């Protein structure tokens, strides 16, 4: 099984019916994406696959063959956090932190397609990501802040 992960080609030997999330976490030790509901409802496992945010718990690793995957780790460039990651710290958008990698990936995927989103567009883009600390308002504020410094 091989695909591009955070800019690097990876080849991994694993059972083909494992989910992409299981392989990322357990074989490749990329632990940004989390497994919570395992049903596609919470968004904690969100990764960007070929430019679109998807739940890595609902994709077989076989279905990721040849594709390009970005996790929250891959948003860091040359040791520098991306604007969304910076803004989450700046605005105090993190409580327990568990949902944050998924939130950041969903928000970054939004800004990649739409660098000037409305509040409603941000809410829609994050509607598949649950925060059980219910810290949504600071998360939305952080994404608005990130949009200001986002470069396409």
């Amino acid at each position, binding site marked *: 099984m091989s695909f591009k992960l955070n800019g690097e080609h990876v080849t991994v030997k694993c*059972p083909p019916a494992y989910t992409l999330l299981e392989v990322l976490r357990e074989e490749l030790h990329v632990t940004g994406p989390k497994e919570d509901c395992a049903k596609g409802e919470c968004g904690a496992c969100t990764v960007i696959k070929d430019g679109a945010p998807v739940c890595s718990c609902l994709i077989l690793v076989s279905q990721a063959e040849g594709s390009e995957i970005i996790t929250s780790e891959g948003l860091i460039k040359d040791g520098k956090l991306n604007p969304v990651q910076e803004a989450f710290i700046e605005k105090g958008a993190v409580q327990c932190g568990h949902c944050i990698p998924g939130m950041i990936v969903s928000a970054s995927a939004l800004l990649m397609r739409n660098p000037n989103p409305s509040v409603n567009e941000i809410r829609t883009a994050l509607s*598949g990501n649950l925060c059980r600390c219910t810290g949504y308002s600071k998360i939305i504020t952080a994404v608005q802040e990130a949009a200001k410094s986002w470069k396409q």
Partner: protein
Amino acid sequence: MMRSEIDVITPQNLDEALAILHGTPNGLRIVAGGSDVIVQLRDGVIRPQKLLNILSLKELRFVRKRDGRIHIGALSTYHDITTSPLTRDYAWPLVDASSQIGAVQLQNTATLGGNLGNASPAGDTLPPLYALDAIVVARNKSEAREIPIEQFYVSYRKTALKPDELIAEVHFKELGNDDRGAYRKLGLREANAISIVDVATVLRGRDSEGAFREARVTLGAVAPTIRRSRACEQALSQKPITREILKSASRLATNDAVPIDDIRGSAKYRKEVVASLVYEALEEAVFG
């Protein structure tokens, strides 16, 4: 069989997929977007020996218009349906349903064919497809079979699909200038909510007096399969069509709902919701 022992076969094209289906249907399960099948695998609801991964079959991912009919390939995602100008212009109740399924992540992967094949009575694309009189095209190695959607669903979670067939596409007559339609869903929240009740209406052929030649009113999540309310449809043939007529017609639809109590709502509540949603959908379609 443990999940680690399941083989995944990824055919390169449709012919190869159909040849595999022809030869080895025993213990074989088709997986497309995966949003239902992977959950069922992990819950042990299904225990296949092999998975046929058809996700990359580009031949089945399209939205086209031909001779006044909209054709949607089975591997079109909800995102594809929601963003296609063809579905937006000629099949908007299906767009409204697709845009309310799951959230962004699911819309990028889950497919129309998957929603059809999973055959849940709460599958949100089904009421609009029933209301559009959609034809499901099933293919095997040697032929394509056209099945009206009402005949495609045999009973609870059971389709007319044969073991060597896969769902290739659906098609239906476009909604034109004299046609109206709407979709309404009640879930517990806006995103990632399975329908408590959802309904679709399609009214075709508006004449100069504002009456329609034919009506379809379809109900989801209130019976083992999607239900048409023929009594409601017939009541809509009166003219001129008024809000009072819509109100009494929508009450008739409750008789066609035979819901169960479950975690999302009681049967009694669902029947009440049917009348409200049908009224809202008809009101939007006729006067909106």
